[in-house]
């Protein structure tokens, strides 16, 4: 499986964020997008996720399921947690499992994997920032997607949580997955770095 983009150009609010950008990542490979604030890391991830329409260029996933788009085969872990404060931890996760569909895993087991099994029935409103992040990470596990698009994935995580996440990324890569992460801090796994230009 190979995810690639070529000649990507993104314009937001009349300002060109990047142009002529290309990237590629194969199965088992992690790509770290680095660069200063405002250099377009998040925009690039959102373009890959299909949430922003590039004004030029194309993205392709070779070797994926032909009838699905790239976005439908990807997980997007953004700044916002996509959690409902009124629902419990387990209800939040079970919803995403049922809604995302595809190859699904048991929600309780995934909560154990991210270390939230003690808080299963707690409303998400009472979670700390780190716990919210752990719950979002559990979403990556509960429905299988070959491509992980991660935006500052380790922010708010404690050291133990970061180690745990490194392990989960390793497993994902070992299973032939692809990780593309926008980050400022080293991810702790073998990555290929792609540096985006300075903010104009």
């Amino acid at each position: 499986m190979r995810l690639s983009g070529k000649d990507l150009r993104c314009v937001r609010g009349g300002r060109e964020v990047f142009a002529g950008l290309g990237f590629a990542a194969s199965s088992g490979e992690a790509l770290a997008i680095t660069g200063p604030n405002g250099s377009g890391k998040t925009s690039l991830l959102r373009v890959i996720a299909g949430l922003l329409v590039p004004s030029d260029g194309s993205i392709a996933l070779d070797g994926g399921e032909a009838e699905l788009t790239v976005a439908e085969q990807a997980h997007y872990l953004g700044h916002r947690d996509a959690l409902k404060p009124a629902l419990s931890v387990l209800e939040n996760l079970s919803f995403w499992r049922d809604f995302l569909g595809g190859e699904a895993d048991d929600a309780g087991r995934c909560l154990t994997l991210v270390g939230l099994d003690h808080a299963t029935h707690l409303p998400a409103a009472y979670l700390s920032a780190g716990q919210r992040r752990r719950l979002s990470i559990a979403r990556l596990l509960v429905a299988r997607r070959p491509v992980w698009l991660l935006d500052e994935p380790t922010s708010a995580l404690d050291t133990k949580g970061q180690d745990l996440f490194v392990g989960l990324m390793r497993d994902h890569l070992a299973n032939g997955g692809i990780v593309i992460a926008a980050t400022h801090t080293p991810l702790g796994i073998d990555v290929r770095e792609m540096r985006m230009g300075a903010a104009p």
Partner: protein
Amino acid sequence: MTALSALIRRDIRIALRVGGGALIGVLFFLTVTVLMPFAVGPDLALLSRLGPAILWLGALLASLLTLDRLFTADHEDGSLDLIVMSRTPLELACAAKALAHWLAAGLPLIVATPALGLLLNLDGTATVAVALTLLAGTPALTFTGMIGAALAVTLHRGGLLLAVLVLPLSIPVLIFGVAASQAAITGPMSFGTPFSILCALSLVSFVVGPFAAAASLRHGLD
């Protein structure tokens, strides 16, 4: 189908929990209808003549009150991004969200109608007629209102915009809803004609609403 039923169940659950907003609509409906007899005065004949219109206006404003959160809540916490990315067509997801909103916020209005009809001096037939027209007409309010909610999603304080966008679309529903109720109470028109048009308006909104909302959500993403 699991995806859609999961979405419907989640939205209903959120709406019914504390701070969810489903009951706010009913409370508003209750307040408007209870205050109206005090404003109009103790003229029972006038009250029963105005009754259907008051109930319909209350229901219309109550559904507007809760509609603006239909997509903004999901947009603010990032859920909308994931819904757009998912394997479920966005049109169906929009329809499921509107259905959930109607079940949680629209249906209670109809359930409350018989009790409120008593306050407005409506007899049995009239109450049944109003409840029936609300049952046929409120889905149209939700499904057309969804278009405005989707357009307002990227704007902060989109509530007022929602009202401006949606109210013109809901005028036909209001006209035929009240006309059908009045026809059942006083005649001379038959109940069937305006009621059929009301049902037709609902059916059209089922088709147009989800597509228009999905299109505006796709364009509104940033």
